[in-house]
């Protein structure tokens, strides 16, 4: 259970992976919004990232953003090896659950869509 990641935590770690080193909270949030279309509250990002930091999956530091980015203080995150392993584990889990079920899922979706058409 110790390495289990929540749904939102997975999204954040993917975002961190995608944005590379030293992504700040705002970047992570935009990334998730862009790719999933979900509206994410900034507070939720920082809170979840704190939690991930508490579990040793990421590190954080507070820096002053360069003046062209408004000059305000930002919190930036970096993925730790433990975080990468946990994310990898989560992905493998999902994959092994989904394996061979593509057709079944498609037909189930067709049924669902067909049902709603009627």
């Amino acid at each position: 259970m110790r390495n289990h990641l929540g749904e939102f935590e997975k999204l954040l770690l993917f975002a961190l992976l995608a944005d590379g080193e030293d992504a700040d909270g705002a970047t992570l949030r935009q990334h998730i919004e862009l790719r999933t279309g979900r509206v994410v509250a900034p507070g939720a990002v920082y809170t979840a990232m704190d939690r991930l930091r508490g579990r040793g999956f990421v590190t954080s530091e507070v820096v002053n953003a360069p003046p062209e980015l408004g000059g305000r203080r930002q919190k930036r995150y970096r993925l730790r090896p433990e975080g990468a392993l946990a994310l990898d584990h989560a992905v493998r889990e999902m994959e092994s659950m989904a394996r061979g079920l593509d057709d079944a899922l498609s037909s189930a979706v067709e049924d669902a869509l067909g049902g709603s058409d009627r």
Partner: protein
Amino acid sequence: MSAAPPPRWARAIARRFLHGANSEFVLGDLADDYVQRRASYGALRSCARYLRLAAASRRAMRSDRWNPAVLSGALFADARFAVRGLRKDPGFAAAAIITLALGIGANAAIFSVVRGVLLAPLPYPEPERIVNVWQVFREWQESDNASFRAMAERFPVSWPVYQEWRERSRSFDSIAVYGEYPTIVDGIDIAEWVNVVSTTRSFVDVVGIEPALGRWFNEEEDQIGGERVVVVSHRYWQKLGGDDTVLGTSLRLHGDPFTIIGVMPAGFYFPDRTHDMWYPVPDGRRNQRFGNQSMSAIGRLAPGVALADAQREMTSVADQIIEDIPDAIDAGVRVVSRVDEIAGSTANTLRLLAAAVGLVLLVAAANVAGLLLVRATSRHQELALRAALGARRGRLIAQLMVEGTVLAVMGGIAGLAAVQAAFGWLRASLPPDTPRLDDVVMNWQVGVFVATISLLVALLFGVVSAAQLRDRDPARGLQQDDRVVVGSRGRSLLVIGEIAVSVVLLASAALLGSSYMRMMSVNSGIRTDGLLSVHVAAPVDIWHDSPAELRTFYTETSRQLRSLPGVAGVSAVSSLPFGGSQSSGSFGFVEDATAPEDAGWSLEQGVSGSYFAVMGIPLVAGRTLVDDYDSSAELVVNERFVERHLPDRNPLGAIIWDNGTPHTIVGVAADVVHGQLGEEIEPKRYRLFERDTGASFSYVLRTDGDPRTLVAAVAEQLRAAVPGTTASRIAMMTNLMSRTTALPRFRTLLLAGLALLAIVLSAIGLYGVVAFAVAARRREFGLRMTLGADGFQVAGLVLRDGLRLTLPGIGLGVLGSVVTTTWLSSYLYEIGPRDPVTLGLVTLVVALLALTAMALPAWRAVRVDPMVALRAD
């Protein structure tokens, strides 16, 4: 792009919504998001989104407030922060940690003793069910003799009383009697004094432990005419070779053969660790009548029976016995738990010390709390800043608490380490008679205790810090005004409390010290320097029915001792002063024609004629006894005897029934102490030592030089005089005497040490408050001096501040003393618990110490250079 920020009202709402460490970043992100969106979606929709996201952020952040991972991360950060802070201020850290280490260490030390003596379970199954049952002898309860009063509460039991109790009581699973007797035992090839217990078969049921080897005695052996059998301790079994084959072999106890039938398990002990054998109560005691009480009773309470229930039942049993049996003595019953029975008088001393040491911890903690408040004050701006940046009050309090906890834990560790290091010394300084000394050990329970009180101290710090934070509006901290905190009420209260507690402790210590000094200055009446005593026992072969041989034993041994170089005089004595035992008996006056035993009672002592000279006891009238062992009918009495029993007569020549025969008083000796210093002197009569029955007695030797050099020679000489003689307990009289005062000495020294600690700590606390106030008022003092105030006036201001704390502290302390020192009554000797002189002196000492603590800050205040002070801003 003209980046218009979100409207001010929206930002204000968001700021109010969002708290916590991340609010700064969230607000920034929200603003950026608004700015980006406004271009494409317009101000209204962007603003709506801004507020929606702010609300969602608030929910997300709130729900996570108590997330353990986040919280522990934060607390860990706080702890790191605290340690870093402490390292930056090593003076403060050292002062706080040493103070706490002293307080916690002292508590750990006392706890280790309390645990061993009072709390550790006895090594029997369900030990809480084991009780001692005593008779309460009403006639002696109101005796004017303190030792009689004490004995009245623990009055022994006779065989018939035991039988009645067994028949009539329902509260016990089983009940047994036992008596302890030092006995000369001839083992395989060793003859020595062994502490032997005579008891009943039911004893194993009471203690709940069976022999590890062989068996316990059975019903047939536990009756008149039963076979003589004995069970030995594991330790004694080892001495015998530690082999199964010892079962069935025999030992001689005082010359009589006993068959070994069992070996108790290793570690078993009863009544204490000095006993090595248990055998059935001898026939002589089974034939006792009601009045001949000489044994102790123990019982195992039946399941579910509380001690109070047993007490109630036994009280009514005792009443019935008195009603039914004409021979029964007028006695009640007292049931007391075995643990309390063993702890005895040590228990109250330990409780007293535990209370005192607890107070010292309070003083120490208050002192450190005071230091923390000063730090909190000087860090006020930092805290205010953090509050302004959005730290919730809870977080600030948590941070202060973590700091307090770090200090308390470090103090606890240091205290525990100190006790661990000093433990050997600590144990050695306990009175040698402390019960269950072997159970006084450092173990995990002491560690748990230290952890617990450390956390309690930390909690106290937290409460104090929180109160401090509550008192103040953080915003004012930013105003750079240190006057706000000068009169910190919390600190003042702490110092007042510290002074009050110190007064109470010092008053208690002073009373005990004064008592102890009075006790020690009592002249025992005996010239103890240079006196050596030795306990001797004749070879067991001649113990029974051989008066002629006993006579030779006595003559030979005393002659040999007298011939030792360096020995100026020798006397035999039946019971040694400070030796822990005394005998007493009644007597009658021959010419009054009263019954031989009705005139009164007195202590008795068998001595030889040289006794008074050897002991240095002056004879105030008449002469000493003549060593006429065949037909002596003389007595010497002490002055108290004359005062009480012969006030109007010339004691010399008075004839007294003593042991059934008329004796003439030929001399009056000065009063001397027998049991311990400070006791009430009782009437006493000295008769000639009974040589023909004296198989076991003591010699006192007056030596010319250092008695220590004679110890080996004495033992050798005695064994040479009569082969088979046992010489034991060779001791200097000065040591015997100081042993009897070991417990009061221990109590007094320890309490004095604790009082000293408390008073020094509170002086430091007072100094801290006054010095801080002076530092804060430098400008004011400078101004006053510029305006013409002189040094005395300024110093007066400082002293007034200090006295505002000292005087209420002393007042409270005196009040507290008046209430609490009555608990000391039973420890006090020739001084009242509210002795006004002592209280006055204590007040004076504390006041002087307080003035000393204020002197340095006052001097600093006077030396303030007005120009420097005024320029400071």
